[in-house]
């Protein structure tokens, strides 16, 4: 019995087919678990381990290395406010304080209504619109406290759902392409290309 619901299980199998070795699908599969459960759940870890041919300990040990994977439940909206150098010079720390008041979260904590989790992030590579704020890894570009408050009100009212989907960075990423070419066929084509190349260089040096 799969822990992942049918559509996600289907996507997980599509992802696995893209890699020469199943363990390479670890990060995308963990994103899929997070899309369903909102965090990297124990059941999700077991399923990723089975899919990638690893143990649950290896999956958890890998997931815990990466900032985007939450090993405990978080709010529906994870708000990330950057305070790194470019944002620091543009009021990032003040924005983080404001975000704490507006969402009712301490940094690193989840609000009582479980709607928000607030994170102080490192650089999010959007420094020309500093201070940078992401919600569920979508750039919201609220560079003033007023704009941020408006955003929080919208989210509380259930608006902007289309713009900011729930967790799962890959929620709207789907490969619509044929399966990769069979490795054996690629190997034989590459061998042919290398032979042709050797012949060319032999001709040139002759």
């Amino acid at each position, binding site marked *: 019995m799969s822990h992942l619901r049918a559509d996600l299980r289907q996507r997980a199998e599509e992802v696995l087919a893209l890699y*020469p070795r199943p363990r390479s699908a670890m990060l995308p599969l963990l994103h899929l678990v997070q899309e369903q459960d909102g965090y990297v759940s124990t059941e999700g870890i077991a399923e990723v381990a089975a899919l990638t041919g690893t143990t649950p300990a290896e999956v958890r040990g890998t997931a815990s290395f*990466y900032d985007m994977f939450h090993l405990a439940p978080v709010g529906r909206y994870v708000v990330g406010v950057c305070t*790194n*150098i*470019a944002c*620091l010079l543009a009021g990032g720390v003040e924005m983080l304080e404001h975000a704490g008041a507006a969402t009712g979260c301490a940094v690193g904590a989840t609000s009582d209504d479980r709607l928000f989790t607030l994170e102080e992030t*490192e650089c999010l590579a959007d420094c020309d619109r500093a201070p940078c704020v992401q919600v569920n890894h979508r750039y919201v570009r609220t560079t003033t406290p007023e704009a941020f408050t408006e955003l929080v009100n919208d989210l509380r009212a259930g608006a902007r759902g289309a713009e900011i989907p729930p967790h799962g960075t890959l929620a709207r990423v789907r490969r619509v392409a044929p399966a990769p070419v069979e490795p054996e066929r690629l190997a034989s084509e590459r061998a042919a290309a290398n032979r042709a190349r050797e012949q060319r260089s032999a001709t040139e040096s002759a």
Partner: protein
Amino acid sequence: MATLDAPLIVSSRREHADAHTLARYLATGGYDALRKALTMFPEQVAAEVDTASLLGRGGAGFPAGRKWSMLRKAPISYLVVNGDESEPATFKDHYLIECDPHQLVEGVVIAAYALQVTQVFIFVRGEFALGLERVQQAVNDAYEYGAIGREILGSAFSVDVVVHPGAGAYICGEETALIEALEGKRGFPRIKPPFFPAVNGLYGEPTVVNNVETMSNLPWIVLHGGAAFAALGAGRSTGTRLFALAGRVRNPGVYEVEMVKNTFRDLIFDPRLGGGTIDDRPVTAFIPGGVSAPWFGPELLDVPLGQDEVAEKGSMLGSGSIVVMDDTTCPVRAAWRITRFFARETCGQCTPCREGSGWLERVLFRIESGEGRDDDLDLLLDLSDNISPGLAWPPQQTTICVLGPSIPSSIHSAIDMFRDDFVAHVATRGCPHE
């Protein structure tokens, strides 16, 4: 005034809101370069890149042509594209990934053809949710168009491109850590030697890792020739480059300018570019190439934007990100925040980096918050010296990767340039800028 007569090589579609679509890409000459490349021998394509002397745009500035030719002896198994842009204040790959993904895909397929690689992975930073969508869409479109897949565009060459998401770890920008992440592991940089993934890369096989901007230059180079690219810029720094300008400037943004022909002053002050500082306040310092780079003072504003030109003055052009500080910026706070970044992002394998970053961060924090002690400056320099002996530039290596030895750069710069500020913090038990 900046010299802006060079062609836009990687940002020519920046005025188009739909630049990420296949329709716009095709309407602006898209995939013409790939068609041309496929009529050439792979070695000829590689030779054009060599002639262009395109320096890698990721940060280390290693010549892309040389990276490729080192491998020419053995067949290469994989091409991996590094789109894990995470160096603080660097946001030029973010622009290329989100706004011109087909240019990236075309460059990637050209590189795959030149290297005769049939399997490509484009590693996109996990926090780029929209970027992942755009690149995957571009790959899907390119498949349908026939530019990826079996016997592309009627040639005998087949290639597959997989978009791989990261999950939030600065260290994965280091190419061997990136490979580990692509193998589904923790992003631990690999022990060197071998120094290059060309020898031992993905699954232990020969692998080329190139940056997003490097790849995005290839369509232009193929269409116009390596010589036309090399005619731009000067010395070792050829072509144009994307600079990410941030901090205390009026118009922060990503700007493509010709290398060497322009200076930091041009970039920061030209009204068509940075437009000067906010409220015309004086520049007190600027970071010339990402937070791993030593800072420059205002007396170096006229240094040209070139790799060797910046190196000669004791820093690096690195990832092409420039952060401007003015007289409202507290240098202690700036150095502390940069150091805290390293303390958070150290992977923890090597003691100097793991322990040193945390100690430095805590000492800087207590100075900034008014708890500094008289000998803290010496302590900072001594700790830094333990991470990278001699505090030289380029730094001495004590660790598996370059993250650790990069930590002292900003601290050393800040103490060198703003010693009085540090002393004032300790003497007045607080931050004089607040």
